[in-house]
């Protein structure tokens, strides 16, 4: 149940989380997944992150550069562009609003 709840909540926020990671520095898919796992988001599948990267690429929030790799196909390195930065700023505003309201609800219920 706890895992399911986490998955559902992450669905709405993963986009912002990934954009926030990319705002620090450009990264490729696997790096992002690895970072998320390190931070305790253990259940995240690489494919989920990949689908999300494809989506933000389609929406023009990131620039993609193909970097040749020693083995296999070139790696796609994603970096946040101006449109992505605007979007991320909006995400943080929405997040602060939500976090504040939820905190208030939590305290009232105590």
């Amino acid at each position, binding site marked *: 149940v706890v895992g399911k709840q986490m998955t559902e909540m992450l669905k709405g926020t993963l986009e912002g989380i990934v954009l926030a990671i990319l705002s620090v520095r450009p990264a490729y898919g*696997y790096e992002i997944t690895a970072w998320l796992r390190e931070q305790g988001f253990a259940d995240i599948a690489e494919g*989920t992150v990949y689908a999300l990267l494809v*989506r933000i690429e389609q929406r023009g929030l990131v620039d993609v550069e193909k970097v040749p790799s020693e083995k*296999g*196909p070139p790696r*796609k390195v994603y970096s946040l562009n101006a449109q992505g930065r605007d979007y991320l700023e909006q995400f943080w505003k929405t997040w602060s609003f939500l976090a504040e309201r939820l905190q208030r609800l939590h305290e009232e219920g105590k």
Partner: protein
Amino acid sequence: MAAKWIELVTGSLEQKKQYKQQRARIEVLPEPYGTVTKALQRYLMYYGGVTDGDTAIKMMSDFADLWERAATDGTPVRVIVGDDPVEFAEAFAHAYPGAQWIDKERSRLRSARGGRASRGSPQKSGVFERFQSMPIARSSVLWAHVLTSLVANLTSVVVVVLVALLMGFRSGADLLEWLAVAGILILFTLALTWLAVIPGLSAKSADGASALRTRSSSCRSSARHSSPLTLCPARCAHSPRTSR
């Protein structure tokens, strides 16, 4: 002009080539990736229902990138798709904003909520868009249409000949000659039906297409036999429309 008509039947040949190139990349993946990606691709095709060629190519190429990387690094399939492959496939499909078969139904539902009846005849419900999004050759719908028409026409010929025989028609032709007649009639009907497909494909609407078709079928049947038993009008009313 001819190339345009050919592409109406086959879809853009260039896009088709590019799509096949991308799909070939997942076909050479080692196991277990080969099996998994083929199953996922099948699901994506049905679920995504993408009708726009550029999106389909981009999807296939991104999909191949992901799995070539996984196969190179030896990443376990479960690490990629997570607990539920369906969830992964649907998230992946949702990442693309391209045209989908269901779009038509979505806009129909939205306009129905506004109290507006959806415009156009029920034949416009997008069955051809649905066909286009399915893993079948684009020309197969046309072939089905042409062959149905052929069978219907042959049935009417058989009926006419049987009635003629009952009424006293006799012929000195032997079996071989009858076969030759049947062969010529089949080829003639096939050729005319395919010719009738061309204006049908060029028509802007289903109604325009069926008007052309009706005319061509009725002139076909009157050229061959002016029988009161013409099955044609009834057939035309039920036949699939050659709309785009």
